[in-house]
């Protein structure tokens, strides 16, 4: 199925069905953002422990 056809098909869904997809998209965005933040935290911890190791 082409992308425009898929978009048309999604647009034709009922509002309730579209809201269910929108909820999933939101959950996914939030999970990705949280994972990124956690990863950044890990990287910061890693660089801190490397700095301590270098100091010692």
């Amino acid at each position, binding site marked *: 199925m082409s992308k*425009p056809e898929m*978009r*048309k098909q*999604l*647009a034709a869904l009922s*509002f*309730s069905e*579209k*809201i269910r*997809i*929108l*909820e*999933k*998209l*939101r*959950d*996914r*965005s*939030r*999970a990705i953002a*949280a*994972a990124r933040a*956690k*990863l950044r935290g*890990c990287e910061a*911890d*890693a660089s801190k*422990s*490397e700095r301590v190791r270098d100091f010692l």
Partner: protein
Amino acid sequence: MGVMGQPVRRVDILLPVIEEHVKPTLEMINQMQTNGVIGKYAIGGAVGATFYLEPSATLDVDVFVSLPSASGGSLLSLAPIYEYLTARGCRAEGEYIVIGDWPVQFLSPSDALEQRAIEEAVQTEVEGVATWVIRVAIALRTGRAKDHARILQFLEQNAVNQHKLNQVLIQYKLIDKWERFARKYLQETNE
């Protein structure tokens, strides 16, 4: 590398996906309407646009609301909304108030076009809960990049009643803005 030199495993960064539904948010807004805190309302933004287009990711809900004016005065305040909702366990976060799991931004109409958008809102339902979405694209006037992108989506998917749009453009003196938008985006697209 992770904490204390431990490698970060992929599994460590995967967080459970908890589905957060918009239905309880709409139920609370409807209850607030039944209790007379707000008058008519219309969902705008990405959630409102989803009524016409394919779903797109968004983190919040924009709600245009008619507010009963304070005892004989002409000043409108969103304070009664915040008081009502915080008394029911919702919390304010900046310009949002979190209802259920969704941050909601309440917007009072700033002019006749927004007022009309509320009055002419389309009734629909989400999982059996009645709600209203905005009919007229206010996006053109606000003119942010994401609003322009949404207008293009509306046009691409033939989700615009061209006759009605023309009437609105004339009535609210938006013809110049529309022409600028069309020159910038539609002509480039057609080339």
